[in-house]
Structure formats: C-alpha cells, structure tokens
C-alpha cells in the first residue's frame, strides 16, 4: 500500500503565487502556488517548456520571482546573501545536463566544491566527499579526469556533487533523461535510499509517467507555467480528463490494472503502484479461483 500525503504537516518548500518572465518576455511561471510535502518524493510532470526547470531554479534562489514569494521551511526567502546561501545549502539541484555542472577535471575535487563553500573544515570535507562518492557508487572513479567519464558516470558525479552538501531537499531535473535502463534504475534506487535513510525530500521532474506513477508519493502536473493538478499518483493517473489536458499517457500499470479489473481477474480493489504489486494481485486471484 502506498503512503498518503498528510498535507497537514508543515511543507518544506512553498511557492506563493509566483510569476516569472524571462528577459525575452516569455512567461515561464504564471501565479504558481504549491507546497512540497516534507520528507516525501514529489514528481513534476509536464511537457517540455512547461516551466519545470524555471520553477526548480526558484526553489534554489537562482531566479527571483517577478511577483510572489518562495518559502523554505515556513520562512520567506529574502534575496540577500545570507538568506540565499542558507537556501542553497538546504536545497540542492542536480542539473539535467551534467556537462554544464562539472567544472573541475578531477572527480573528487569537483565534489569537494560544495562542502568547501559551506565552510567546513578539511577533514569534514574529505569525509563528505568520500561518503558522497560511496553513496553515488563512484568511488572507483575518484581519480579519473571528468572528461573521460561516460554520460551516466557524469550524471552520478553531478548527483554526488549535491549529496556532499547534505541538503534537506534534493531537486533533480530529469534524473533519468538519456540514461540507459540500468543506470536510470540505479539512480532512482539511490534517491529512494537517501529519502528512506536520511529523510531528505526529493523533488524531480520527468516525462516518464510510469516512473512517476510507481515512484513518487505526490505529483504535480504543470503546463504553460501553471499547476493544472496535484495529488497522489492514484488520483492523478486514474483521471483520464486530467491526463488528456496535460498531454500525458496513462501509465501501463493503470491500463492493465483497469482491464484486468473489468474482467474480474484481480483480487483487490486497491490500484497497484508497482509491477510486483499487480502480479501479486493476479496471483492472489488465481489462488482464490483454484480454492473455489
């Protein structure tokens, strides 16, 4: 069974009616208000150019809204030096293209940049770097020059970059884009682990409805700079009209489950959130049939 969001708990990040236009006049965000549930895994789904990345850059204080407020941990972000540093210490972004994030030619040095900026003593920084490399599974790459890494490896270094800063919120822009199936699965497992063991709030954007459905605790649908829907995956993905409006496909699990349910081939009335759960429901029904 899936966990249900208790919106009563204090949200970790909030946007209050934020609007943002780029210098060329494109309105990227249009009066967005939302609350990110603390300690959960939240997914943003929406077509290209919907405003996902722009919104993420607001969460980290890189962009300042033209109107509206961003709040971290109940406190409004003031765009001064201290407030921004505090926000960036607690909210880390892994950018979509690791190529733009990696500046150093050495993996361990690259990862050390964040913790050094936090003003930690040397030993502590080493500890963080080693730990982040272990978590991201890249300890064996430590002495490799960054330009000899594969795309998947670069992505992991980019993630370790942020992990070393130990943020309270980890934002990942399209974590599985351009990754092969194995790499993508490993990345998501890593996020699961971090979320599970340290309670870090995870936010990611994706186009992959199957991934979002199985993986996220809470979903935001975003289109043309507006949030068009939010809710737990079961509510979002069983709503055909909503999916059509957001130009999204239904997850295959939802399709198959509905079909099986119509034929009476599954036992439970609870929509499965993973392939495993669906298979179990089918097997349970089988057992029931043979017992009859």
């Amino acid at each position, binding site marked *: 069974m899936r966990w249900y969001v208790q919106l009563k708990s204090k949200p970790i990040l909030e946007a209050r009616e934020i609007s943002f236009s780029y210098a060329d006049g494109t309105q990227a965000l249009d009066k967005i208000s939302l609350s990110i549930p603390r300690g959960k895994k939240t997914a943003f789904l929406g077509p290209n150019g919907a405003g996902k990345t722009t919104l993420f*850059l607001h969460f*980290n204080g*890189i962009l300042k809204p033209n109107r509206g407020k961003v709040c971290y941990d109940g406190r409004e972000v003031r765009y001064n030096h201290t407030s921004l*540093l505090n926000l*960036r*210490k607690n909210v*880390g*972004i892994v*950018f979509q*293209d690791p*190529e*733009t*994030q*990696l*500046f*150093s*030619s*050495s993996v*361990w*040095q*690259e990862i*050390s*940049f*964040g913790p*050094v*900026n*936090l003003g930690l003593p*040397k030993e502590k*920084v*080493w500890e963080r*770097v080693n730990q982040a490399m272990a978590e991201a599974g890249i300890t064996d790459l430590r*002495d490799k*020059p*960054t*330009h000899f890494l594969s795309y998947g490896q670069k992505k992991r270094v980019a993630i370790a*970059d*942020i992990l070393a*800063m130990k943020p309270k919120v980890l934002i990942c822009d399209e974590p599985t884009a351009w990754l092969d199936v194995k790499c993508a699965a490993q990345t998501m497992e890593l996020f699961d682990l971090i979320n599970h063991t340290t309670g870090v709030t995870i936010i990611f954007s994706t186009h992959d409805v199957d991934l979002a459905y199985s993986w996220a605790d809470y979903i935001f649908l975003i289109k043309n700079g507006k949030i068009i829907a939010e809710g737990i995956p079961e509510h979002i993905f069983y709503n055909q009209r909503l999916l059509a409006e957001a130009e999204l496909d239904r997850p295959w699990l939802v399709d198959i489950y509905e079909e099986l349910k119509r034929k009476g081939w599954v036992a439970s009335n609870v929509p499965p959130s993973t392939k495993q759960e669906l298979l179990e429901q089918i097997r349970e029904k089988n057992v029931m049939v043979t017992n009859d």
Partner: protein
Amino acid sequence: MRHIHPAEKFAFALTTMIICLALSTSITSLLVILLMAGLVIIAGRIPALFYLKLMFLPMFFLVVGVLTVAFSFSPKDTYPFLWGFKLGGYALGVTAAGLATARELFLKSLGAVSCLYFLSLTTPMVEILAVLRNLKLPSLFIELMTLIYRFIFILLETTEKIFISQSSRWGYATVKTSYFSLGQLGANLLTKSYYHSQMLFTTLLARCYQGNINVLEKPYPLSGKSIAMFTVAELILLALGLWFKA
C-alpha cells in the same frame, strides 16, 4: 609516476629545462631528450610510439623556424657558404656556423619540449594546478586555468558533435558547402560556449559559489628518495653538460 609528489616532478621538469636552456649545447639537449624519453616511456609507462608521435607534433614549427636560422644571406659572395646560390645581387646559402646554430636551437627546443611533456604526461592537470596554488600564484590564474582546461574538452566535444551532424547532412560535400559549414560551426561554437559558460555559472551559484572556486587539495607526502634521485640526476646532467661544454 602517479605516486610521486607533483611538486617534485614539477621541480625536476623545471630544473632540467633550465639546465637544457642555460648550457645550450647540443649534447646536453640530446641528453635531456633521452633522459625525459626514458623516464616517460619506462617509468611513466607511456607507449613509445605514442611518445614519438607527440615529439613529432612540434617538429613542423621547429623545422620551419630552424630553417630560417640555418640560411644566411649576404650582399657579397665572399661568405663561407657550404652550399649556396645567387639571387639578384645577393648570395643565399648555408654556412657551417649557421648550421651549428640551427642544430643547437633545434635540439634545445626539443629538449625543453620534452621537459614539458614529462610534466604533462606524468602529472594530471589538477596536480599541476595544486603545485601552482602552493607557489602562491594568484587564485584568478588558477581558477581560469581550471575552467579553461575543462572547457577545452567541452569545446572539442561540441566541435566534434557539430561537425558530425553537419557532415552527416552533406555539409562538407563540396568546397562551397564546406566553407559555409565551417563558418556555421565557428559561429555556433561561440554561441554554444557562451551558453555553456552561463549555465556553468548558474550551476556554481546553486552550490553556494561566492566568487572563489575553492576546492580540496590532496595531501601528498614528499619523498626523500625521489628528491634524492631527482637531485642526483640533475647533478649528473649538469656535470656532463659542463664537461662537454668545456
């Protein structure tokens, strides 16, 4: 040679280069070239053929530069030419002295180049930068070098990608389209680099960048053994060089 302290390698390469340039005799330069080649190929485990290819890289510039030194011309043809010809009222040719200078210059340059090759083939850029930082070079230089070094690879990769995408669409099929494509490549490289540097700035900001790129340095232990070995090698080189010069 990864385990040797980068500062030791740096100092060794630098002193060898100074000896090579200061003594300025063909035999010293030749010794330096052989020493460095030996170190890089045997101790550094760089394939000999690869090293040979690398040595050929500066050859073109060297040959062109040295040729102009080797040739001398004079308005009279009383010059002690080994071989020469007349052009108008001038005599143009090669003298023994010119040839000797050219040979010396050629070997000297190659010696200096092999010292730099030794450094760059055995020491990663990060470590060279660490040495420079310890030498208290202004951080602006170090940061620029860090970024430039990283961007060289990004630039190369971007160039390759654009080139492939152009040539796969017949961008270099004729001379005319080649010129056009090459122009487009150059222009796009500029805009892409600009975009890239902007993005890099954003990503650095997101990680609490405050105007300085601060990173960790790896601690390397200084080793008495390798310092002694390097010193002995330098002394032998110096002694041989001075002996040959005298």
